[in-house]
């Protein structure tokens, strides 16, 4: 039988060759004539006002074109709180209006943009600004201030069942969990190139997860029609959530370029990346689980506080998973915000759930030891047959399959029953496991298909691909649908002029965009079948349902006509079809829709130095049908690396006497390196979800990381008998007394 390239065998990442040859162009890399360079000068106080900026020497320095600050920032419609008629501006810029006023809201806030004809000249001149501040008292110390209830902002309570059930529980565990600020730190620096044509036409090369949403944002900022803004983002060098919204570099570059009537590029520095592009907020959690002696949960109480900026609230679903991941009649959760004089947090891979599952899954581990039960057995005991919060049936939930396979692959039977009781090569050995969960859904998207006479199929949508392999997955969906070889399909993205696509985030791209690709392929199939009946003698009397598309040909029984020949006969140089996918279906609303993961970890801990070495990870997921195994596996491997960072390394540190971040570099902020990576095995349930979308895929990006930190912590407990509830887990927190 004839093979169709890329369908029987998994094909490589569609843009791999562009990436390994250096041809892939990221935002800052587009060649634009006569470009100027903008660099931020940032505040050296945490709160207060700028009294004056001495610009003389900088303005006189070589190549300097302008210095933009509150003193001369041009009127920008989206920055204005009121419209000309005095009513509230409904389209006001979301978040900090950079360069707009002289208020300092956090340490390191951009207060001026120095623009020069070269990067070197801009950097040199930026050193010459002398800024006088009026400083005010500020607050950055989360761990101290969270204890003061008057400073907290309630942000949602939930209760079902009996409120005092925890007090009546026969078996009970409780603990407080703290997680420091973690920063996405993608390898690509946040960057914008702004190019104006006249006063009302703007092209922006920007690092964004949502070209279409960025187009709308910029149209509102400058009060120009959407169609006058073009956002281009061919490649995104990692983002993990931090490019879901536009940061200060975007308006700064656009405002400067408009003022100077010259293209301007603004690229953040690595230290600025730690402060100006969001982060996972610092958090405190308290969790109590009550159970019957047989391990059945009788009560879960989960309270959380997380940090936000004083100038903007950021909320995430830290306590949400505790309401539905396990069957339990009595559940109470609360969530509060602590506003501080810091920059605003944002969604970071596994937002909310990554934080919440660390506490929940560690606590369940505690309970398992107390009851002398296996950690998997206690989870099975509390497996929810329906979603206990919404009472809706799961669209699919194959966590039990994950448990079985994970146990087998990690060698769970080698796990010591008593913590700290087993050694291997002179090291304490421990095994741990934990679950992850995240919502799965689909939104609206539009995809255009263009079939060329030579049989090349081009699919287009205004999305971006920050690394999960969206391009590859979309090509794969089309290839399977049309039985078309992958090397004859192209997917074009990264341009807001293309049909509107979703912002890439929340593990929804494959579901959302994939559905639109599926629909457009179905329409194209129908169109080819009808054309065949109309224009090809051989198909005149064949029923449409008996006409197949296969390997760029029209096939029925023994008849086989190339698509190129059909198009020639039909006198069609190309066929173009656009299809919209409407998002959530009625059927979906009758179900609880989630992706699930279960991670198994084996660790070694040195008995004296308490050095932690992760020996092996097995990560399993129920993410529905896996579209592209190659890239899906990579995404899971990446989640493990992110989880290792969260569990053992990452911590942004403030100096609370100045409000300054003191480890804003890769030398100070520790991230996982090659040497930290254990042998990792990925396993997927790979069963299609029958409800969420016609392709059967759920999301993957978030669950790859969610739960990992708890699995590592649980393995360390199993190895040492020491429970660390404050991330990152270090030898010192495990009791190592040396320096």
């Amino acid at each position, binding site marked *: 039988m004839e093979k169709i390239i890329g369908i029987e065998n998994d094909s490589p990442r569609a843009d791999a*060759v562009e990436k390994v*040859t250096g041809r892939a162009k990221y935002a800052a890399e587009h060649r634009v004539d006569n470009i100027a360079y903008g660099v931020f000068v940032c505040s050296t106080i945490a709160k207060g006002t700028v009294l004056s900026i001495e610009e003389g*020497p900088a303005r006189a320095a*070589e190549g300097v074109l302008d210095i933009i600050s509150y003193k001369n920032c041009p009127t920008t419609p989206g920055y204005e709180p009121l419209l000309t008629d005095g009513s509230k501006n409904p389209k006001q810029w979301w978040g900090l209006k950079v360069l707009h006023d002289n208020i300092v809201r956090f340490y390191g806030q951009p207060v001026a943009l120095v623009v020069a004809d070269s990067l070197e000249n801009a950097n040199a001149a930026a050193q010459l600004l002398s800024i006088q501040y009026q400083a005010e008292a500020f607050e950055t110390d989360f761990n101290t201030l969270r204890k003061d209830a008057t400073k907290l902002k309630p942000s949602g309570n939930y209760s079902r069942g009996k409120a005092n059930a925890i007090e009546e529980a026969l078996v009970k565990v409780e603990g407080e969990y703290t997680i420091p600020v973690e920063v996405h730190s993608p*390898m690509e620096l946040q960057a914008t190139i702004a190019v104006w044509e006249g006063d009302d036409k703007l092209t922006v090369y920007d690092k964004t997860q949502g070209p279409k949403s960025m187009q709308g944002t910029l149209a509102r900022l400058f009060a120009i029609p959407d169609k006058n803004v073009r956002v281009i983002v061919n490649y995104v060098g990692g983002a993990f959530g931090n490019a879901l919204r536009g940061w200060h570099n975007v308006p700064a570059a656009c405002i400067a370029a408009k003022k100077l009537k010259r293209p301007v590029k603004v690229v953040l*520095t690595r230290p600025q990346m730690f402060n100006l592009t969001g982060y996972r907020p610092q958090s405190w959690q308290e969790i109590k689980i009550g159970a019957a002696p047989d391990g059945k949960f009788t009560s879960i109480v989960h309270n959380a506080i997380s940090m936000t900026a004083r100038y903007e609230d950021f909320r995430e679903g830290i306590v949400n998973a505790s309401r539905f991941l396990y069957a339990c009649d009595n559940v109470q959760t609360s969530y509060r915000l602590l506003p501080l004089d810091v920059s605003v947090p944002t969604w970071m891979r596994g937002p909310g759930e990554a934080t919440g599952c660390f506490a929940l899954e560690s606590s369940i581990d505690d309970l398992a030891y107390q009851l002398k039960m296996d950690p998997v057995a206690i989870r099975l005991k509390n497996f929810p047959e329906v979603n206990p919060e919404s009472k809706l049936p799961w669209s699919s939930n194959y966590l039990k399959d994950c448990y079985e396979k994970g146990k087998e692959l990690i060698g769970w039977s080698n796990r010591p029953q008593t913590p700290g009781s087993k050694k291997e090569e002179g090291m304490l050995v421990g095994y741990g496991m934990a679950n992850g969960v995240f919502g799965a859904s689909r939104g609206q998207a539009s995809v255009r298909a263009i079939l060329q006479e030579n049989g090349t199929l081009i699919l287009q949508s205004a999305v971006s691909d920050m*690394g999960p392999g969206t391009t590859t997955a979309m090509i794969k969906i089309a290839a399977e649908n049309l039985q078309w070889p992958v090397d004859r399909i192209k997917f074009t993205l990264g341009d807001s002029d293309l049909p509107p696509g979703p912002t890439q985030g929340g593990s929804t791209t494959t579901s959302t965009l994939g559905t639109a690709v599926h629909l457009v392929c179905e329409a194209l199939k129908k169109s080819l079948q009808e054309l065949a009946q109309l224009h090809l003698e051989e198909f005149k009397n064949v029923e449409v349902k008996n006409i197949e598309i296969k390997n760029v040909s029209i096939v029925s029984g023994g008849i086989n006509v190339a698509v190129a020949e059909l198009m020639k006969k039909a006198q069609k140089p190309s066929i173009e079809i656009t299809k919209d996918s409407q998002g959530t279906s009625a059927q979906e609303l009758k179900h609880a829709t989630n992706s699930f993961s279960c991670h198994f970890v084996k660790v070694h801990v040195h008995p004296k130095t308490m050095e932690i070495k992760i020996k092996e990870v097995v990560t399993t997921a129920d993410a529905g049908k896996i579209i592209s195994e190659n890239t899906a596996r990579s995404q899971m491997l990446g989640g493990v690396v992110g989880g290792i960072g969260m569990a053992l390394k990452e911590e942004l540190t403030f100096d609370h006497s100045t409000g300054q971040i003191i480890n804003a570099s890769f030398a100070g902020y520790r991230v996982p390196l*090659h040497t930290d*990576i254990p042998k990792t095995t990925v396993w997927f349930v790979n069963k299609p979800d029958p409800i969420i979308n016609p392709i059967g895929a759920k999301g993957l990006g978030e669950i790859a990381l969610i739960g990992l930190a708890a699995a590592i912590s649980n393995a360390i407990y199993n190895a040492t008998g020491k429970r660390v509830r404050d991330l990152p887990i270090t030898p010192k927190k495990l009791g190592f007394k040396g320096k």
Partner: protein
Amino acid sequence: MEKYCYQNSRRDFLRKSGTLAAFYLAPTVLVKALPLESVIPMPAPKEKIKLIVNGVERTAEVDSRSTLLDFLREQLGLTGTKKGCAMGQCGACIVHIDGKRMNSCLSLALFNNGKTVTTIEGLANGDELHPLQEAFVVNDAMQCGYCTPGQIMSGIACIREKKAGSREDIQRYMSGNICRCGAYQNIVDAIASVQASGKPV
């Protein structure tokens, strides 16, 4: 001749940059106290350099403060070499200078007068990928692709310097190359596969 040129420009550079440093490092209060004329820096010295980049001889006038990284990206348009930190901490900008791997953000452009520089763009022979590029494709040793050029340039050096004997050796040698997407395992697989193939790199 080349050697003489290099020493000359280096000495010249140090002299000029010494003058510049006095301004740049001065505390802001001091700058403010000085009369305006005395704190306006002189135009930065420009230097003419000649070097071979990916087999092509290039002559360029460079700002003496330009790093090799910015020179490659902004002046030559060779953006395959990535800027991840500009502080020598991430490895995204690794190139080969006279065959040795180097963080291009830690080398001033003018230090490379007379040298031979190879970047990611110089590895493939037309459509024929370098064995390690090919191995990266086959092993899916990337996600976003931004650290990839640096990982490949470093990986080639790892094999050439005979440091790819075991997975642990590769991990240790590659630990200056950060990947935030977490493609590490596949990167090591790719390097190990080329090492095992015995193909010349």
